[in-house]
């Protein structure tokens, strides 16, 4: 069953509602999602063609038990083996896949699990992405932190013991300029050992500027690699331009970033094809930039404010686990992050098999760390992007990981 994404706020003007409905119902009212907008840098890269040709020709129904067995027997997992491991034929082999994945994780990461936390510094957004709580038609409390507020929030987070931070914004250049984000990153460097960003895609020179401000890791979620589906979900704004988003990680590396993170939002389209494309995006970029550090996430759709019906459709925990094990077997060297969108029990289990990084002390709202960490609401707050499922604090996460016999790591990083 398809998700029911469209929600009308009673506070929208008649004109705004008309525009919204037209975008939703009349494809001709929407811009060409494959065409770059003014100011968007075009790089010459063959990565996209390589990824898309595999994805388009991927028929996961043709893989059999025999292919899956062969894939698990091979010492090195080929692209075709990976396709078999992602197929429905591999579902009965989940335990075997988990065993192999655990072995590979151990070889490359030992028993370490990294911990980080996100901080949303603004939730203004110029896009209409129908599944996202920040979308410009959703009636939520908007907020952008001042530099003083950013510093205060970061200090509270750092005082909890956290050493790695991921700075996020809604996707609005007008409200959250590159310079504004750069200032936030400079503040973050005072409090944290490692600073990453998850913001709207920017050009190479802007990534270079942000790197100089102290950022070394860039996360961009492609949401879905299915361009037709993407067009139907991202109806308005610069985020609508699919190819500019696809090349974001490569521009970030060209701009001097140490590492990049990738993901599809599982549940938006055919998750097996999206998982294939996400991993191949990493695979081909790694061949081109072998020095770069890479990581994969695997978020599933979550309910948002004003729409609690949004869900990850056919991606249940078993399917998610299959995807993560296949990622690990195919790309044993990449980091795998599992966010607080997933439950504590899932995260406790998956860090023993494939995941190497989890978030803790998470808020997807703006300016509410003081309330969430210390129980004091001292300032105005912006609403959350989505509901989280695992609200564990850093202290709790740290002790839970330790109790599982794993080694929690807060920092594995030097800005050189």
């Amino acid at each position, binding site marked *: 069953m398809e998700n029911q994404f469209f929600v009308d706020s009673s506070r929208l003007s008649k004109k705004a509602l008309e525009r919204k409905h037209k975008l939703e119902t009349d494809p001709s009212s929407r811009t060409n999602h494959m065409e770059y907008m003014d100011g968007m840098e075009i790089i010459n890269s063959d990565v996209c063609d390589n990824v898309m040709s595999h994805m388009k020709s991927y028929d996961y129904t043709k893989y059999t038990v025999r292919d899956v067995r062969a894939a698990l027997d091979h010492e090195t997992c080929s692209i075709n083996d990976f396709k078999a491991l992602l197929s429905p034929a591999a579902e009965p082999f989940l335990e075997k896949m988990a065993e192999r994945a655990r072995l590979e994780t*151990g070889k490359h990461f*030992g*028993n370490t699990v990294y911990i980080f936390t996100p901080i949303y510094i603004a939730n203004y957004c110029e896009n209409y992405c129908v599944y996202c709580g920040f979308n410009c038609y959703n009636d939520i409390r908007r907020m952008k932190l001042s530099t003083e507020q950013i510093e205060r929030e970061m200090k509270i987070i750092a005082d909890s*013991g956290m*050493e790695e931070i991921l700075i996020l914004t809604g996707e609005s250049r007008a409200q959250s300029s590159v310079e504004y984000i750069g200032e936030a990153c400079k503040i973050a460097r005072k409090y944290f050992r490692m600073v990453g960003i998850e913001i709207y895609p920017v050009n190479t020179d802007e990534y270079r500027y942000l790197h100089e401000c102290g950022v070394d890791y860039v996360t961009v979620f492609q949401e879905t690699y299915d361009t037709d589906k993407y067009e139907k979900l991202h109806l308005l704004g610069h985020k609508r331009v699919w190819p500019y988003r696809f090349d974001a990680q490569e521009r970030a590396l060209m701009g001097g970033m140490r590492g990049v993170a990738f993901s599809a939002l599982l549940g938006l389209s055919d998750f097996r094809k999206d998982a294939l494309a996400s991993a191949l995006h990493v695979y081909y970029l790694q061949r081109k930039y072998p*020095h770069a550090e890479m990581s994969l996430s695997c978020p599933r759709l979550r309910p948002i404010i004003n729409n609690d019906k949004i869900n990850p459709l056919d991606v249940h925990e078993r399917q998610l686990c299959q995807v993560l094990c296949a990622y690990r077997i195919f790309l044993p060297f990449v980091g795998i992050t599992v966010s607080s969108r997933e439950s504590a029990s899932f995260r406790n289990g998956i860090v023993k098999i494939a995941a190497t990084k989890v978030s803790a002390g998470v808020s997807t709202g703006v300016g509410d760390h003081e309330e969430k960490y210390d129980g004091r609401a001292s300032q105005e707050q912006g609403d959350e992007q989505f509901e989280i499922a695992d609200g564990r604090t850093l202290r709790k996460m740290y002790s839970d990981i*330790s109790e599982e*016999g794993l080694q929690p790591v807060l920092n*594995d*990083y030097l800005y050189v």
Partner: protein
Amino acid sequence: MDNDKLILGGHEFTSRFILGSGKYSLKLIEAAVKDAGAEIITLAVRRANTKEQENILDYIPKNVTLLPNTSGARNAEEAVRIARLARELGCGNFVKVEIMRDTKYLLPDNVETIKATEILAKEGFVVMPYMYPDLNSARDLVNAGAACVMPLAAPIGTNKGLATKDFIQILIDEIDLPIIVDAGIGKPSQACEAMEMGAAAIMANTAIATAGDLPLMASAFKSAIEAGRKAYLSGLGRVLSRGAAASDPLTGFLRD
């Protein structure tokens, strides 16, 4: 045997086992150090540079020499900066130079490693470079002032053993510095074999970190390394490498 010491940068060590620490639970490090009899333990500066309450430094006994590594460095310049930071953090003068431009296999970059070794040796560091076993590079490392040469046996973390055996043997035969086999050693028997070949020491991490009982595996490595060393020192017996030996000597016809 009692006088058989491993000498690195003028420092004497009795143990020939260097323990990697990157993949352990901290609480197991102390036991592993003890059971392996290790006198040198590596430490990733990128990991040690933390506010974390449970700092790895707290788990390393005081009589053990710290060997900070430059893990995370992508070129000589970064490795030099990390080494200097290690010294500032109070980790002493030893440094293991690791430079990787490849995040998939983590293979060392010999060219950059030679450059970093030269700079750091001049600054008074005891430089232990991790390298791909290439004779020309090893000679350059000697000239750059390295205290030893640390060739990889197999890609790191793979536990595949002496995949580069023939090339490591060439280094052992041709290089006058200690050859310490690093990366890829997966079993005590492989460590023993490398020691029989004449390696000066073994470094391992994953093989122990992924064992069921860490202290027991650490102790197994200790025994294997000692056995291999004794065999090397005693002179291995005749090995028939190609076919059987002729019972009538081929040169039996020679008269004077």
